[in-house]
């Protein structure tokens, strides 16, 4: 079952790679089937551990195990896929995009369930590669942006590999069992605090770059800003899940002392990043960059929640991850719809569009409000819990991040005004059509998801209570932290 989650999209991608015609017909049903599989995994289908590829000195390379956190994130990524495909519908390179997206999502599933670090690492690298590939499909085909994305992620993940290699050798040298399995690595005696600090930093470099945590964020603006909107949707909504999951499943449990030591800095960096990215969004030259930095700002808020190492905050951060995936679909979806109408997203080319496309305008406002963290919509529970939890741990950085509440209203409303309000931009064709049925249906689906997450977040929050006992012990009081 778990293997199918990875192999199914890869197989479909392979099939599509060999054939030129069927992509529009196959892509969405395949994505929906993937979602169905993920839902089955989440809702208690029998999912035995899947082990294969036993290698000497490395353990089972293909070692997948179900967990409620992994399954929740898997459903999130799988749910994002059909949206991305449908928003990419009119893309010239739809087939290429579909293949890249399927490869990416399949690899993501691998990162969520892998219990062997090398397996996780390989999947993680495939995510990075297919992400870079996706940046080059559609959009501006900016090789520099793709390269920068790769440089950052690969450079970072090499450090991650070094750190875990050290842990692996250390545990192997002490008890003679050389394996990369999570249980072994986590059970090994903790390195002394100084070393743990450096090792944690190294792991962080590999994982936090994916979020991206300030100051490792610099790839994100060009990458999200130059890629086609559906690609940015998957990168900022789904690919980031791997980084956050890696932090909570690998970095923090393997190096609890390092995490504890780093936590105050992590909160501070997250707070700076939240504000910094919001400022960049305020001065963004076009709509895509704006969405890119907004997304980075939210991810830094996630980092605050994770590093608070506090019950409410971690729940909030994980919730925000899922909510942000929905938001990314909405934001980049709206941008994709604009681009499908020949509106490239530069501020000068927009303005007063509400008059032509009131429905699109209403939905744009809806997702902007979600992004502003309006209570009742998806982002709010996550933002609130992250910040409220962080306040109990370190109030000052959390207060800095809370200023983002204020800044975001300027950021979003100014962008909205530039696109939708005021007199109609003379450059916009008179006949610019409002939403078509397919687009409207997609936005309604996302909108209802937003409302559901915002008004009744409890079912999703409950999922995170099922974290592995080890996670809970580490995160929620196994190491006393502040309180």
């Amino acid at each position: 079952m778990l293997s199918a989650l990875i192999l199914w999209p890869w197989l479909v991608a392979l099939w599509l790679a060999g054939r030129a015609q069927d992509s529009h017909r196959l892509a969405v049903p395949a994505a929906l089937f993937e979602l169905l599989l993920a839902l089955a995994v989440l809702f208690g289908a029998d999912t035995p551990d899947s082990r294969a590829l036993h290698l000497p000195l490395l353990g089972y390379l293909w070692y997948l195990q179900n967990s409620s956190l992994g399954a929740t994130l898997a459903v999130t990524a799988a749910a994002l896929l059909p949206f991305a495909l449908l928003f990419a519908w009119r893309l010239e390179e739809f087939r290429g995009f579909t293949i890249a997206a399927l490869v990416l999502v399949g690899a993501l599933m691998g990162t969520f369930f892998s219990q062997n670090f090398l397996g996780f690492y390989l999947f993680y690298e495939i995510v990075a590669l297919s992400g870079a590939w996706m940046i080059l499909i559609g959009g501006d085909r900016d090789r520099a942006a793709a390269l920068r994305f790769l440089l950052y992620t690969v450079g970072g993940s090499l450090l991650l590999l070094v750190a875990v290699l050290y842990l692996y050798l250390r545990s192997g040298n002490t008890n003679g069992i050389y394996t990369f399995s999570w249980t072994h690595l986590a059970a090994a005696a903790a390195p002394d605090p100084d070393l743990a600090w450096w090792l944690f930093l190294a792991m962080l470099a590999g994982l936090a770059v994916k979020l991206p945590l300030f100051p490792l964020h610099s790839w994100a603006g060009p990458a999200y800003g130059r890629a086609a909107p559906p690609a940015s949707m998957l990168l900022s909504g789904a690919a980031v899940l791997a980084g956050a999951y890696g932090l909570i499943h690998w970095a923090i449990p393997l190096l609890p002392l390092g995490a504890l030591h780093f936590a105050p800095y992590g909160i501070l960096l997250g707070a700076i990043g939240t504000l910094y990215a919001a400022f960049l969004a305020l001065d963004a030259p076009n709509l895509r960059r704006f969405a890119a930095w907004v997304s980075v700002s939210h991810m830094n808020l996630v980092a605050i929640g994770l590093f608070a190492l506090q019950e409410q905050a971690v729940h909030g951060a994980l919730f925000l991850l899922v909510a942000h995936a929905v938001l990314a679909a909405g934001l980049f979806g709206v941008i994709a719809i604009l681009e499908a109408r020949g509106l490239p997203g530069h501020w000068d080319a927009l303005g007063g569009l509400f008059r032509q496309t009131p429905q699109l305008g209403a939905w744009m406002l809806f997702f902007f409000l979600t992004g502003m963290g309006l209570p009742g919509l998806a982002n709010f529970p996550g933002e609130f819990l992250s910040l409220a939890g962080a306040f109990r741990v370190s109030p000052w950085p959390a207060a800095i991040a809370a200023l983002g509440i204020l800044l975001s209203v300027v950021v979003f409303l100014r962008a909205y005004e530039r696109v939708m309000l005021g007199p109609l931009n003379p450059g916009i064709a008179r006949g610019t059509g409002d939403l078509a049925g397919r687009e409207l249906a997609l936005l309604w689906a996302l909108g209802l998801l937003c409302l559901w997450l915002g008004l009744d977040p409890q079912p999703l929050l409950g999922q995170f209570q099922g974290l592995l006992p080890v996670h809970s012990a580490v995160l929620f009081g196994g190491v006393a932290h502040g309180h």
Partner: protein
Amino acid sequence: MADWLWLIPGFPLLGALINAGFGQWLGVPMVKRLAALMPLLSSVVILVIWLEHATHPELVDRVWTWMAVGSFVAEIGLRIDAVSLVMVSIAAFAGFLIHLYSQQFLAGDYGERRYYFYLNLFVGGMLVLTMADNLLLLYLGWETVGLCSYALVAHWYRQKKNAWAGRKAFVVTRIGDTTFAIGIFLLFAQYHTLDIHRLLQMISGQPVPSVLLAASVLVLIGALAKSAQFPLHLWLPDSMAGPSTVSALIHAATMVTAGVYLSIRLLPLFAAVPGMLWVIALLGAWTAFFAASCGLAQVDIKRVLAYSTISQLGYMFLAVGIGAPALGLFHLLVHACFKALLFMAAGAVISIYAEDHDIRHMGGLKNQQPLLRWTFLAGISALAAVPLISAGFYSKDAIIDASWLAPHGALLYALALAAALMTAAYAFRLYFLVFEGEPRVGEPYQLGWGMKIPLLILAVASIGIGWLQFPPGWPGPHLWLPWLRAELGPTPEPSGNLALVLETVGAAVTLVGIWLGYLAARWERQGRGLSRIGFLAHAWYVDAVALRFLPPVVYGGARFLRLGVEHLLFRSGILGGIREGLQWGGVGLVWGENGLVSRYVAFMGFGLLLLLLLLWGGL
């Protein structure tokens, strides 16, 4: 338990939902009627509460659990007590009257469906705000009404300045929302609960932790921003860009009073911090004074009313600060009636004069529109607090008189009294300029019954509702304060000769003010009016200074971060450095030639090999 309380906010929210989902198929006429029906249904439910539970209302409805993580629980929980019963009555009933008035007033406008969607959503949000039993749900209502205020101020979005005014309103109030949110975080960090009742119980009778000072200041800033108190009043005059009905509902009767409501609700929090209440009183008195002085010199009919709203809200904060929240709530109720009336009537006046807001271009409307004139006069009398016959006399003068008893009461009293003088002056200046004098005929405008009924109801209320509570010692009904006594405690009231002196002075000041208003109108007609005093007309230049400095700092900062830090430091500096380093390190050989993927694979493989060797050797 009363598990039907959710119906009260539920009806308008349902209306908004139906409008959003099916409004296109229903058509505008149907949407309009449905929208007006919803607050009426809420009012009916509220009427039932009045009939059955009026003496001691205490109803709770826990609808569902919003969030629960560990020790933190936030319910969607609604509560009705005496204070919130007053608030929901205003929100639902004034909401209904304004929906009714809008039917004709905005007929044929562009974006009618959008208007009713936000109006319904607003009423729903306001009802949630006033009924919330925990701070988080209150915050939900708080933000919802803020959003609706934004959308409705920017209703006529095709003009840039309207969209800008809407954003300004949202941004300035969100300064307060942010501090309010931080205050909530602090309270949660300290007390681990956001349930208002439990929170207040934990605060009272405990030694005051230092965090409480910070939390109460932050929450107070939120309340001040929402209620447009100095110096966060900047957004309210500009928000007059929206339709007059919106100003009537949101920027007079309901949303702007949310800050007052919050400070009444959280009074024990403020009371626990020494000196806090007095600061609130001083800020309120000062705002009442400041805004009244600005009102004297305005020529835009809606701006006069906007500054009067700021000023009247100042009186309500003054009442809260001097420990007389019951009087503050009383004035809130009275103000909601007469100010909603004035704004709606002003809307009609503006329509008559073809969207010209300048009162210097108006005059003599009393013969053309007798009903409009009499109802407007009722509202103006209440605003000016004409002795004995207007509701404002019973609510506002009671606050002014009670402020004498507070510590340093003379200062508060002097500010409040000077404000009252100016209030009477600008109120009657407005009335004389618009309705008296030489007739300047506008366009023919026929008020339909949908407009007349709300005006008449509110006019009657602006006169009569004050009789709920006569001044202390007078024969007549004393209903209001005793009714609220159980919840809000005793209200300080002057008695004996002191009361008599204060009441006489108050009444005399109002009469003098009316006379000054008459003079001011005459001067204005002769072209030498108060509007020529730039300092007052530009509201002491506070707004100009703020606009001059704050936005450039924010936008300039953003530009600096993008060009100076992100581009120069992160992109060129760090990334360039890495690239250089790699090239010098020899990896550049693999780097330079091939395609993207092969580069990567080579790079990764080489690095891996190197690392493995190093590590294996090292251990």
